[in-house]
């Protein structure tokens, strides 16, 4: 429903405080909640609350920047081998670069893996071993064949700037399970996608829900590291603010802003602790490829390990961005072979490690892992050895958190160009992600511009066939 009427009630946080806590307002309240003395209002009870029992508690979204090729990874097409070098024998739409070449066979061989026998190309030898945990969607579609719009769409359900990101919606819907860390964290491996950080924005939701982008550098978050003498300053501010409450009145906004300083201080400890990997075993580090010869693999391995640590700490939504490799992002308009191999080398082992590690720790059951680019690539060449953008049919996969592993859903045509069986939209993907988190995508709404907005607009169907 997208046009319902509702009215906010004039209830303030202060009134809520008065009802639920005694004494010194917000600071005391947060302390109490942190100690578990009070039921934390955010635990499993967000703006809308869970609508049904959740299968997943967290999401790790592995964003494959640039659009990996479906016919070279998870969707083998023998017809490409047969017709290699010939003009494609089907009607094709205009492409982004309109430099259409002949049919291009995949440079990589496919092999069947696991009990499910799902074919995976030799680009992903590690992920292939986890194939029984994956639900492949081979009929993914996107409405844009251009990066920025497709990125906004994949992240926000709209091709334009300004809508809340999927992670922001999840936070708005469910709240966080951790008081000392942001609920939506973006691990920046080096590539901010086209469209910029607005892919992770909160749009018309309050700023509190926007993704916090952690850089892979010494100072992951701006202004986090305390300056010299900060404890003294903080203490002075606290005393003067107490005095101010007497002057200005104990108003909500004021008390909330004061309590903010306590929370900020906790973040200054919790984030460095999160990034400190000393406690991880040598075996774990090796599993993720932290000792890999390729620096891009090491960066991505660290990001995947951090993703696990974030999920362990109750962070709801973690998005992992790709590292820079010695080629472009997955956007191989030319030299498909080198580019895809470099991107695959950087991500394959860490992703497999993440799945394995989550499983070993019993976290995979409650963590939904999604692997997706903004679109796929054309079965015919761009120029001689590249592939152009293809939003009409490509592959993504989901794993863990209530997903039935070892499944294939949907199919593309014989060239792998168009989704022809059970086409899936980004709305469907979002509906499914929310569903697994216990949210009915049709009921997670916020009023903006005279409408009750949804992540899925007026669309979206849960892909029930891939649910466990």
């Amino acid at each position, binding site marked *: 429903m997208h*046009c319902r009427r509702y009215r906010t*009630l004039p209830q303030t946080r202060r009134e809520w405080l008065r009802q639920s806590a005694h004494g010194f307002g917000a600071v005391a309240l947060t302390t109490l909640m942190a100690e578990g003395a009070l039921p934390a209002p955010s635990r499993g009870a967000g703006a809308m609350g869970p609508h049904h029992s959740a299968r997943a508690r967290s999401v790790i979204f592995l964003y494959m920047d640039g659009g990996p090729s479906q016919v070279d990874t998870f969707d083998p097409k023998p017809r490409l081998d047969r017709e290699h070098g010939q003009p494609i024998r089907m009607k094709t739409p205009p492409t982004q670069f309109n430099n259409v070449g002949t049919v291009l066979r995949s440079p990589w061989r496919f092999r069947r893996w696991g009990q499910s026998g799902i074919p995976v190309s030799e680009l992903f030898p590690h992920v292939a071993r986890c194939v029984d945990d994956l639900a492949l969607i081979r009929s993914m579609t996107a409405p844009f064949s251009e990066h920025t719009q497709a990125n906004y769409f994949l992240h926000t359900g709209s091709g334009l700037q300004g809508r809340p990101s999927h992670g922001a919606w999840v936070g708005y819907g469910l709240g966080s399970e951790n008081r000392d860390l942001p609920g939506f964290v973006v691990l920046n491996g080096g590539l901010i996608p086209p469209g910029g950080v607005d892919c992770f924005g909160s749009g018309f939701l309050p700023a509190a829900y926007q993704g916090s982008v952690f850089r892979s550098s010494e100072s992951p978050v701006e*202004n986090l590291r305390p300056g010299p*003498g900060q404890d003294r300053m*903080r203490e002075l501010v606290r005393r*003067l603010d107490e005095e101010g409450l007497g002057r*200005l*009145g104990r108003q909500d906004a004021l008390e909330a802003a004061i309590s903010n300083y306590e929370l900020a201080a906790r973040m200054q400890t919790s984030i460095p602790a999160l990034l400190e990997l000393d406690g991880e075993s040598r075996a774990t580090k090796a599993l993720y490829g932290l000792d890999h010869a390729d620096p891009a693999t090491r960066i991505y391995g660290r990001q995947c390990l951090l993703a696990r640590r974030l999920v362990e700490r109750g962070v709801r939504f973690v998005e992992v961005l790709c590292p820079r490799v010695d080629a472009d992002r997955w956007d191989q308009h030319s030299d498909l072979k080198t580019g895809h191999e470099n991107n695959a080398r950087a991500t394959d082992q860490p992703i497999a490690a993440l799945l394995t590690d989550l499983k070993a720790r019993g976290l995979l059951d409650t963590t939904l892992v999604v692997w997706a680019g903004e679109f796929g690539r054309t079965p015919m060449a761009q120029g001689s050895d590249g592939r152009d953008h293809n939003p009409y049919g490509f592959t993504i996969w989901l794993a863990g958190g209530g997903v039935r592993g070892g499944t294939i859903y949907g199919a593309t045509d014989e060239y792998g160009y168009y989704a022809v069986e059970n086409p899936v939209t980004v709305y469907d993907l979002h509906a499914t992600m929310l569903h697994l988190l216990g949210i009915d995508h049709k009921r997670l709404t916020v009023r903006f511009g005279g409408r009750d907005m949804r992540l899925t607009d007026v669309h979206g169907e849960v892909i029930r066939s891939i649910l466990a």
Partner: protein
Amino acid sequence: MGARRFVVGCWGIGWILQVWAGVCLAQDGDGRAFFEAKVRPLLIDRCQKCHGAEQAKSGLRLDSRAGMEAGGESGPAVVPGKPQESLLIEAVRQTGSLRMPPKERLSEAEIEVLERWVEQGAVWPGEVGEAGGRVASAGTLDEAELAERARHWSFRPIEPVEVPAVRDEQWPTNAIDRFLLAAMEAAGVRPAGPADRRTLIRRLTFDLIGLPPTVAEVEAFVNDGRPDAYERLVDRLLASPHYGERWGRHWLDLVRYAETAGHEFDYEIPLAWRYRDYVVRALNEDLPYDRFVREHLAGDLDPAPRRDQVTGRNESILGTGFLWLGEGVHSPVDLREEQVRRLDNQIDVVGKAFLGLTLACARCHDHKFDPIRQADYAALAGYFKSTRQQYAFLDRETAGRETLRSLRDELVEVAWEGWRSDWARAGGGTGAGGSAGDGVVVFEDFEGGTLEPWHASGEAFESPAEATVRVGADALVVVPAGVAHSARISERLSGVLRSPTFTIEQNYIQYRVAGRGGRIQLIIEGFEKIRDPLYGGLAIRVDHGDAMVTVVQDVRPWRGRRAYIELADGAVADFTGETTRLVGGDGFVGLDAVWFTNDAAAVGGGEGLPVRYPLEGLGGEGAALLSRFREAETALGEPTLGLAAVDGTGEDEHVLIRGNPRTPGPAVARRFLSVFDVREGDGADGWSARGRGEDSGVAGSRRWELAEAMMDVRHPLPARVVVNRLWQHHFGRGLVATPDDLGRMGEPPSHPELLDWLAAELIGSGWSLKSVHRRIVTSSAYRMASQGDPSADERDPGNRLWHRRELRRLEAEALRDALLAISGRLEAVLGGPSVPPHLTESMEGFGRPAVSGPLDGAGRRSLYINVRRNFLPPFWVVFDYPLPVTCMGRRHVSNVPAQALTLLNDPFVREQAERWARRARTEAGESAEATIEWMYQTAFARLPSAVERMAARAFLGEEPNEADWADLAHALVNVKEFLFIP
């Protein structure tokens, strides 16, 4: 339906504690609201994908009542009143052989909704029994329903209101207070006492100019014994040039102001800042608001534009710049779709900013709640579709041009008296002609002796009626008649010549051109961001010199599209590089003819060689004239350009079925909202007033008429909307809490009579915003203390009645400006190009500027920091600076730890704290006591209390060094009173 309460907390970088209310449906008399709220969304979501406008599986359409009754292959889908006999219900119950939807059964609740709806007679508002095959999603809003919706409060005329009587005659200062007090008295609530003068001057100064008062200003006001001391203060601040900066920034939120286009590469929108300065000047001059809005819509068409008194530049035209400040897509695959998106954004902004209406809701269907038809949307879209972007020439016609013209004539007379016979001997033409073979269409050859119907801007293009001689770099050159040429007078002049809009019907466009540094651009469906991939070929550089040659442009991918040609000698933007730049106006371009052809072979004959007379060796009088000519050229200076609208060919827009440009319905003639016609009883209706589509034949966009209609004083929305905005920025919340939506989905006004009284005041004062400001801030209500009477707090906990002053948090910009002001770093200069933003480590991605700006923004107010869509400064974002995507009349006021971290650790804050501490010690003298006092005066407009003095002294210790002082300063800007203004 009872409201459900949920509590959300502790989220994101946020930890906001917020209470949300649930959903409650409006009471429903006749089933319309039930249909809109429950049934229509369900049908759209679950049925119409297969049974709607896009496809009608089994011949069935479920997007109109008629379609349902007509049914499909299995028979009628509904029998109104009889769910048991309705196939629709049988199908969704999945009890028989027909089971729908095929993939996922409806929930029980959803099925019950449909059953109840059928049972109650299958009410479909506005349905007039048309067949299922017609435009079902449009035109469902009939006259009766439109008139019914027009009864909504905000559409009603502004009637004179009576100022209510109150018991307490002492408290009110003006009528505003009487309206508020009457409501308070009715609720048994007493207003708070008056704020003290220190609080008052700090409050008023921030509200009116966005800066803190200086120590001297505070003391002067506190010690001003005159009875009208406060009124004098108000007058001083309203007259301050910083007033326009403060309120200009509020305005920029409404027009999604930014100086880059966002998207992948975040291209510059060159000269966007001139619009920003225009807004500041207009507000400072107290330009009547109705004129301000008219200029936004049609300042380029103003028959007597306002001109800057000093520079003589056209002010009015700059208002139209706001149309082009939206997000711009880089290399969209479908240009028409991109145009539709752009129009949508323009209409969204116009609707919300000026009218408080969500007009863009009616792009795909009639508005669900407000009296706005889909046809109204199309009617409005036509105005903007007929409007083009330009870099307008703002200067008055320069005397320089006439000087150059006569010098040229003299020079030619003296140096090359026999040019006509030389030229005749050489053939006397342009070498054009060519073969008028099959499928060759002469679009333009300028043989009619005029540039019309092309439209020239700037000073470069002269009539092509006669051959003239131009003064080239090294020769005099004949410019034949029948050539549109930008240097008949001088290469230094610049200008752009734009063709009428046409449909691309053939494969190639051929241009016979000459030029140096010139450009031809083909603007398709209004798309001007021309670059590769895909669009590189739409811009042609003309740089080969005086020879006339034919250039062939392949336009096969765009057959069927609407387009126009820009012949540019400067004054257009070039998107082919890393970032946008304006093309310079030196050089020239000449266009002899434009042909449309189906074959790529050039039709323009051979090369047309110029007839020249070399200037080298020119002596005597000729040389003297030439040097005078060159001096006059140098004296010309660069033209002043501004981003603006320019009229194109008049084109009506089509109703787009389901908003989709690939399914156009009928075109609708350009007009303002039909609801106002209905109210005035002339009975016009959007569907009978058919437009004429692409060749509407009505010259120009007619935006001036739109502006007149919109700002007609009988039309109540603009005045209500703007006074509500003023109120909101003074009181923290509007009388209507949803300032951009005064429609049915918005909040109703808390004090409707007061709103109308203010609106009438505005109109009565000749639309003077400053006079409304003055009314508001001189009220007793505005001057209340923020601490209310405890019993009043009890009775009015949400302060809905405004029984006390609401504490206000400074916006990002005001906070930053306040830091600069107290530290002494503020450069109080007005206007000009923006300062590049300081780039922090987290500002990364495509389009990141190569160079970072200074950490302190060169001390300029935040208003002057370059707004880059994809690179908004984190400092701003943390303090709720809105994304510039559409009209944002109300910002969030969030409370996130990143705010604390910013004020504690951001290097800019630290730098200003250090600066402030140094300044304090210089200005206040040596004594620590005096320094502390001075700091409190600058930061809080008051002296410290005894407790605060002691705390500060204890913090500093016996022998404070520079770092201790800086720490104290840094701590003080973290004290909440710095950020929250009582």
